[in-house]
């Protein structure tokens, strides 16, 4: 469980930092998906990395309630990513994924991206399983 939490949280932190750092670049990447109106690009570019960071932090919390909430946030994001990627593949658009910010080696969106996000979704689901699920919960004070 902890491995899944660490892995998923680390993935989102690594993805979020370059995007939060290069807001304009990420906004351009989002535009390339041709799915959002222009006025929303900067807002999405600002909020998505923060959702990733906050969700990752919550996933690493020692309080199970925050872990679950973090899992819901990150799971929701990942589902949205999967839907976007599927739509890009369906529309045949060739673009840089932008998933991990602007990279020297542009990563084209395709089936590997989709599979990676599905695997990430699985890791988030595992991460949401309570660590002490098997033990009886202590009586409340």
């Amino acid at each position, binding site marked *: 469980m902890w491995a899944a939490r660490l892995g998923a949280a680390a993935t989102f932190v690594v993805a979020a930092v370059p995007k939060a750092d290069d*807001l304009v670049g990420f906004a351009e990447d989002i535009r390339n998906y041709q799915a959002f109106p222009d006025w929303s690009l900067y807002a999405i570019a600002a*909020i998505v990395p923060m959702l990733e*960071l906050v969700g990752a932090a919550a996933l690493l919390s020692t309080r199970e309630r925050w872990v679950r909430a973090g899992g819901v946030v990150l799971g929701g994001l990942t589902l949205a990513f999967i839907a976007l990627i599927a739509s890009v593949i369906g529309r045949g658009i*060739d673009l840089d994924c932008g998933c991990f910010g602007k990279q020297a080696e542009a990563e084209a969106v395709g089936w590997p991206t989709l599979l990676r996000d599905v695997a990430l979704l699985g890791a988030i689901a595992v991460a949401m399983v309570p660590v002490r699920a098997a033990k009886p919960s202590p009586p409340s004070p």
Partner: protein
Amino acid sequence: MALLALARDTVLLGVGALGLGVASLAARLDVPWTPPPAPPEPAACGVDEALAVADAPDLARIAVAELRTRMPGVVIVDARSTEAFVDGHIPGAVSLPAADIDAIIANESLPLPVDRDIVTYCDRDGGVDAEYVGRALDLALGCDRVIVLEGGYTAWLAGDGAIEGALQSG
């Protein structure tokens, strides 16, 4: 109840992220508040329109000698007619006639790799076709990696460049 608590916690996280997002936007007031310029729809461009894009930077140029040193690391695009291409073309070139480029882009069937520079050429230097196809590819791919061959096919032949096609020597 548990679901309600989960929904509440999730909303709290979302609001926190929203606040951080707004703060990160506010911290960058130097960011231009207009979205990055959208590439014009290539399918809607005619020759005149593509060439008249006033603020479009000129496409870079490459000399025959330099092209030779970069082959086969670049994609070479022949913007001339299919007939001219069949007669003879620069080895390895892909035929994308200027007359067909709009339809090819509209069909999203560009037969080009996404990670290499593209060199377009037509018959001669300053030829409209190479420029037009180059602009169309530049707009469609949006990566500033389209270059026009100086002197076109004429310069290639004058430089004793090998050719492929019906008129191939030897």
